[in-house]
Each structure stands twice: as structure tokens, then as C-alpha cells.
């Protein structure tokens, strides 16, 4: 992570005894399991009580009753609800989410296709958000109530309050339509599509693996605007949180002590104050990242980005419950994993969390 550069010298890794590790791991696993089952159950029930007829979305309005009945059976809708759920649960454990009504392919295959697109976008977005948001927050706190602080506040406020739809379209209109600085919607220009072999599904990574810089730069010019848009939103949040964490630390006595000791201002701010801000900041960043990984439906729609957000939404609108449930499981897993990951980082950074 970019943050650790300044602070690597100040931290020491601690080792946990193995038995404690096992116990911890078991606890984590248990929590994950309960959370996931709960998530599946809720989604499944909501899906079944929705006032959409999944059969009609398969066969269309003018199908004969016989065709309708056949499809009804084929979807397993004639079985009791609890049986349907248990069947679904069993399949999910085997990594089988069933077939999507809309794409006529296994949902797992669809997810492998759409999730990397979101992952790529969200990761670039959160990196920009951190790289710009954290220093912005720090500077705003250090120079509290100066013009820098005011500008930072305005930027964050705009980030909070502008509708993503509007700002995305304006971004496209100006940067793509008028200035031509970035490429338009989609992940690649058409003549770059399907050139590099799919390995991770993230075009930036795949093109680097294939050492195809033309494709890489084209992908960069496509991703920069939507990722910048997502970054702006997380930046607004991250910079505000960084500022308030920093302000709290800068008022502490140890900062005064450090200054009295004659440490440089740089060391006081970055090593001492920021060193203590890192821990709560991890939670903030992890949550923003998880939010981005859910897939931003609006951003994906405007930029024709085939990600998981629009996949789940399209599925929802057409009563494609397999797709919705599969997508929900992935999003749920992402949240749980990021939580575990930030817990681990806590243990790494925070001397108290042992």
C-alpha cells in the first residue's frame, strides 16, 4: 500500500501462537458461514416473492399454456419453497449457481466474465482515491481553516452531492466529446477487442502479461474517466475522514512533545500523527473499496462497462433469479473478505489489537 512507505521503519511485525491462530481462523470461518447463509436466505426469499413471473420472462407473453407449464417445471418452480432453497444451497456449495435465463450460460461463467471488469474499475478507482484523498485530508488538517482546507471541503462537498449520472455524462461530453483526451464508453476501442488472451479478465493486467502496450494504453484511456469518477466519490469520503482523524491526533499532547523535542514538521505529521491515523483509515478505505466492488450501476450504465452492478440489475429486472443470487453471493463474499482483510491489517498496524 502506498501509505506504508513513510512508516515502515516504525512498525514491527508480531507473531501469533499457532493455536490462537487456529481458533481465530475457526471463528472467522464460522462468522463467514452464518453471514453467507443469512444473505442467501434473505435474497432467495425476496426473489421468490417479487411480483414478476420468471416463467413469462423465459417463454414470452404469447406462449401456449403447454410451453408455459413445461418451462415452469424446468425451472423447478413446482417444488415447495424450502426444497427450492435447499437445492439452491447444495448447488452453491458446489460452485453451481445454475443457468442464467438471460445469457443462457452458467451464472458462474457470467460472473467470471463480469466481476473482473468491476474489480479492475474499482481497484483503479480506489487507488486514485487513496493517492489523492489521503494527502488532501492530511494537508487540510494541517492547514486547518486555510484556503487549502476550504478548497478541500468544497471538493469533497461536490463529490458527495453531485449525482453520478450527471457528472459522468458531463465528463464524457467534455473530456471525450469535446477535448478528446480520453476514449469513450466501453473497455476498449473495437479494433483492440479480443487481441490479448484472457487470463485474469482485467484488461490492464492481461495486456501487460501479453506485453501489448497498445492495448494497455487504450484500456487506460478507457478506464481513466469512469475510474476517476468512482475515485472522486471515494476521495470525497476518504479525505474528509482523514482530515478529522488527523485533527484529533494533532491536538494530542504527544504531538506537542514531539515538536518540543525539535522533530521536523514532516516527521511530526507523517510519522507521529499519521502513524496513528492509519488504523481507523483502513476501515474507511476497506468500506469504500467494498462499495466500489459492488459495482456502480449508474457508472457502469453510462460507460457501457460490463460489470457486476449492471449484471445484477439486469437480472433483477428480468426476474433472472439465478443471476441475482449468484451476483449477491459474490458481492457478499467480497464484503466478508475485505472485512477479514482489514481485521488482519489492524493486527499488523495496531499494537493494541492482539
Amino acid at each position, binding site marked *: 500500500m502506498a501509505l506504508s512507505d513513510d512508516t515502515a521503519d516504525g512498525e514491527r511485525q508480531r507473531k501469533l501462537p499457532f493455536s490462537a491462530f487456529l481458533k481465530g481462523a475457526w471463528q472467522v470461518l464460522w462468522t463467514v458461514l452464518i453471514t453467507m447463509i443469512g444473505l442467501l436466505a434473505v435474497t432467495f426469499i425476496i426473489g421468490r416473492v417479487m411480483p414478476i413471473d420468471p416463467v413469462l420472462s423465459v417463454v414470452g407473453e404469447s406462449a401456449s399454456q403447454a410451453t408455459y407449464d413445461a418451462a415452469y417445471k424446468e425451472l423447478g418452480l413446482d417444488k415447495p419453497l424450502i426444497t427450492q432453497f435447499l437445492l439452491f444451497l447444495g448447488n452453491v456449495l458446489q460452485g453451481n449457481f445454475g443457468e442464467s435465463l438471460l*445469457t443462457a450460460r452458467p451464472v458462474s461463467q457470467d460472473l467470471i466474465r463480469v466481476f473482473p471488469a468491476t474489480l479492475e474499475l474499482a481497484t483503479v478507482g480506489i487507488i486514485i482515491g487513496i493517492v489523492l484523498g489521503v494527502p488532501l485530508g492530511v494537508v487540510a488538517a494541517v492547514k486547518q481553516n486555510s484556503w*487549502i482546507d476550504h478548497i478541500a471541503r468544497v471538493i469533497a462537498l461536490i463529490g458527495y452531492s453531485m449525482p453520478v449520472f450527471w457528472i459522468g455524462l458531463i465528463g464524457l461530453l467534455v473530456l471525450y466529446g469535446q477535448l*478528446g483526451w*480520453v*476514449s469513450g464508453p466501453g473497455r476498449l476501442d473495437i*479494433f483492440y477487442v479480443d*487481441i490479448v488472451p484472457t487470463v485474469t479478465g482485467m484488461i490492464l493486467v492481461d495486456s501487460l502479461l501479453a506485453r501489448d502496450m497498445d492495448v494497455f494504453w487504450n484500456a487506460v484511456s478507457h478506464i481513466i474517466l469512469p*475510474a*476517476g469518477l468512482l475515485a472522486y466519490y471515494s476521495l470525497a469520503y476518504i479525505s474528509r475522514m482523514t482530515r478529522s482523524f488527523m485533527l484529533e491526533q494533532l491536538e494530542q499532547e504527544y504531538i506537542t512533545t514531539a515538536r518540543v523535542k525539535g522533530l521536523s514538521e514532516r516527521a511530526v505529521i507523517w510519522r507521529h500523527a499519521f502513524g496513528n491515523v492509519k488504523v481507523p483509515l483502513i476501515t474507511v478505505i476497506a468500506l469504500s473499496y467494498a462499495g466500489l466492488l459492488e459495482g456502480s450501476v449508474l457508472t457502469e450504465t*453510462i460507460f457501457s462497462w460490463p460489470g457486476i452492478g449492471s449484471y445484477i440489475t439486469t437480472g433483477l429486472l428480468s426476474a433472472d433469479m439465478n443471476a441475482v443470487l449468484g451476483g449477491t453471493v459474490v458481492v457478499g463474499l467480497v464484503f466478508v473478505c475485505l472485512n477479514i482483510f482489514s481485521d488482519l491489517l489492524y493486527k499488523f498496524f495496531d499494537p493494541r489489537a492482539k
Partner: protein
Amino acid sequence: MKAFKSLRQDKTLRLGKSLTSGKALLVGALAGSIALSASLAIAKTPANILVIANRIDDITTLDPAQSFEFAGSDLSRNVYGKLVNFDPADFSKGYQPDLAASWSVSGDGKTITFKMRSGVKFHSGNPVTAKDAVYSLQRAVKLNKTPAFILTQFGFNKDNADQTIKLIDDMSFSITTDKKYATSFVLNCLASNIGGIVDMKTVMANEKDGDFGNAWLKTNTAGSGAYKLVNWKPNESYTLTVNKDFYAGKPALDRVIVRHIQESATQRLLLEKGDIDIARNLNPQDITGITGNKDLAVDSDLRGRLMYISFNQKDPNLSKPKVIEALKYLIDYKGMQDSFLKGQYTIHQAFLPRTYLGEIDDKPYSYNVDKAKALLKEAGVDGLELKIIVREAQERVEIAQSLQNTFGKAGVKVTLQVGTGKQTLSVYRAREHQIYVGAWGPDYPDPNTNAGTFAFNPDNSDAAKATGLLAWRNGWALPEMSKATKAAVQEPDKAKRAAMYQAIQREHQKRGPFAVMFQKIEQTGRRANVKGVNVGAAITAISYWPITK
């Protein structure tokens, strides 16, 4: 694929100045994403590739025996040949020989014998023979998927398909219907999507558990049309490449790429920048926005969808002929067409969409409050109160609001009941509505697709439960007209048959409890250099092969 690399334009991208100081960061925070600047020559689509923006998230399968959506029909029309087909150069000629070179009809009018065109090949290289045609039709009947009714209405079913669809020799076969039908009826149906002829050898090689290759054909194609499928990424894009051996001559463009672009505004931007050649879902505002741009052009084409309102004949007031007539005079056709439906719908008052066999363009009704008042008076109805049910789709709700307003001018008090598609449809199917605002799209390119529902209702009893028939849904008993509709289905002479439909429609306009109001217009934005775009009018889908740029 590598060939496309050479098409790339020379783009040089460089990273902007790296941002170092805190102040620069502040400036950079908002503009962070602009750190990239590219000296872009405007990205134009390559000369041999057609790039189209369209909403293609409705494609659920590519199997011609199952596909029944708009975007799927676009693809199917260009990938699969049919026995007979519509010529994009002139739809008014009706169906023309395609993979069948000729046909003859038996004396009793039940058997049609087809002779196949020789020398045509599938994309796989296999020759197109009568065996493939027989297999394709039999598998469509036996699979019995959503569009199967288009074929099974002629009496084919999975038990008799082997006898009724019969191979004669390598290049000829026959089909025998259960009754005598107009040849034009049968052939029009064979010209619809489900009539797509698949490559038997390829499909059978990919059959699984006796599914006639249905699972494989969902995501693959085996046709003989002008283009062949390279790949289909659901909700993302599909790519077609030219069939150099297309029997009607190699199409001009080597590749067609259709990208799923949901937003009209995004489609417009891409079109203006030249990143796409055709934008198929521009909304009226964006159409207005690009009008006047010299590099772009807008085409308007009639499509098959109709907007109508219907009056339930179980209602004592609404069943009075004078009341029906009066209400038809209380619709502000022109006002709606020129305001919120502008560019999307045009006035049309008959149940067959224009470009269909037997179409009429009569418009006997216009907005006339005085006449309506007089008619209501003659009917002896005073202080009429009506409920209109309408589905929560913007244009339909707007239509209902306009009706509420104009009906009110003649003292007819209207309440609106807005519901989801499922809610309104279930009320309609149960015949519990008073007035319903409906949209109807034809299922196959023969007049019977609409006549058979607007003007056909052999048994009006509740027990008949003919929920598929619009006439039944509105409780309209029409024995005479049902007979006429049935007779039209069997009339062998095409011109006479067209005349029969014209007569039925005129009668329907006069007496029917339906006020057909509008026919759909589709507006397509294209680069001015792109020529020969024909989206298929009301009867079929877009043809890519005549397009040049």
C-alpha cells in the same frame, strides 16, 4: 485477429506531469483523471467494419427455433437463410425465394412442395439440402419453444412432424398442413425467424441428450446467411464476419460489431465522435440534438407495434355502438402524435400495421368534441364515468392522461388506474376492465397475426377462456367477422386475400370496440456515409448485407 492491429490508429499517450507538491495535489484532486492526455486523431471506425450501438440485453438465445426478441431477430436475420425471405430492397413484393428456389401447391391446397436452391453452402462448408430444411422445421416443431406456435398453427406437432414434413429427395421436400390454408399465410410464417434453416450435420454433431442441439445453438450458430457469428458476449456485444460465399453475392462490409450501449446520450456521443456508425436507440431529444449535423443522418422507419385502446363489451354503456363511436372521436390523435409521441409514433387507425399484406391507411377518426357530444346524446348516455387501466410505462400513462383530458371535454369523467404490467394484464385477461390502454406487436409477418386476435373470437363465453384473443378479452362477440377472418386465412389468391383483410379492417374500424391510434416509428441515427440501412419495417428485422460505407 492480428490483421486488426494494423488498423490501429497511431495514438500516443503520455502521462501528464507527475504531481508533486501539495498545492498541485489540490488542483489534481478533481482533475486527477485528466493526468492522461492523448493526441487523438478522432477515432473513426475502420472502412470495412460496421459498428452499431443497440440495446441487446434481450438476447437470451441464438437458436432460431427459440429466439423471439428484437435484438435476437436482428442477428438471426443476417446469419440464417430461410426458405423464403423478404427483400430489403422492396418489401412490398412480399416473400421471395431464398433457400427454396421454387414451390408448388397441391390441388387440395394442403401440400406445398419446395425445390431447394442448388449450390448454396452453410458457413461450415456443408451444402444446403432439403434434408437440412426438413430437419430444421421438424426440430422447431418438436422443440416446441416459445415461437413454435407460428408453425404448429398449421397442425404440425411432435407426433406427426415426421409424416407432415417429408423429404422427397436431396433437393426437394414437402409440407402438408392439417387444413387448407392460404399459401401466402404459410410462406409468410416460414419467412419469420423460426423458419431459419440450420446446418443439420453441424447441429447433430453438437446434440446433447436428444435436445436437437438446442443448448449448443443457444450460443453458437449454424446458418448460411450473409454473415456468420464470431462471438456473442451477453449484454456486451456480438460480432459477425462476412460469409464470402453468400449465394446472393459477398456483402460490402467485412465485419459487423453490435455493442450494447444502454444510454441514448452515450449512443449519441459515440455517433458524433465517429466511434460507431449507427445508433439505434436515440431518444427524441437526442434525435433533435443531432438534426442539422452534416456528418450525421436520421432515418425514420415504420415498425410493427400498435397503440390502441379497447372498450370492454361486458360494460352496459361501452357496448353501445354510439358510445364506442363517440369515444373514438374523443381521442386527440394529432395532439398526441405531435407532442409527447413525436418521432416515436404516427397516427394509424387499422389493426394491420402499414407494410403488412392487406394494409389500409384510412383514418376516419379525428378529435371532434361536438360530434362526440351529439353521439353520446343520441345514445342517451349522460354523465358517463369510466375507468382506464394502464400499465406504468411513460408513453402509455401519457396517452391515458390525454384521454382523461379529452374525454372530460364531452362530460365523460375518467379515473386512471396505473399498475404494473402483470397487474393490468391480469385484469385485462380476466375481462374485468372498462377501458384498457394496450400495445400490440405482431408475432409473425402475416396479416393473420393481428387479424386472428383483433378480429377473431369464435366463442365469447367466459368458459372459453380464450385469453390470447384480444376480441375475447374485450368480450366482443363477432361471429360474422370471425368467419371472414377464417376465410381470409384460406384464400389462395394473394390479391383477393389482401382485399379481404382490407374489408375486415374497414368494418372493424367502424364497429369494433378498439380504437387503434398509433403505429411505432423507429428513428435511427447514422453517419452520413453509411448507406443502405433498412431496419426491416413492420415485417422483419435489420439487414446488414446491403449496407455500405
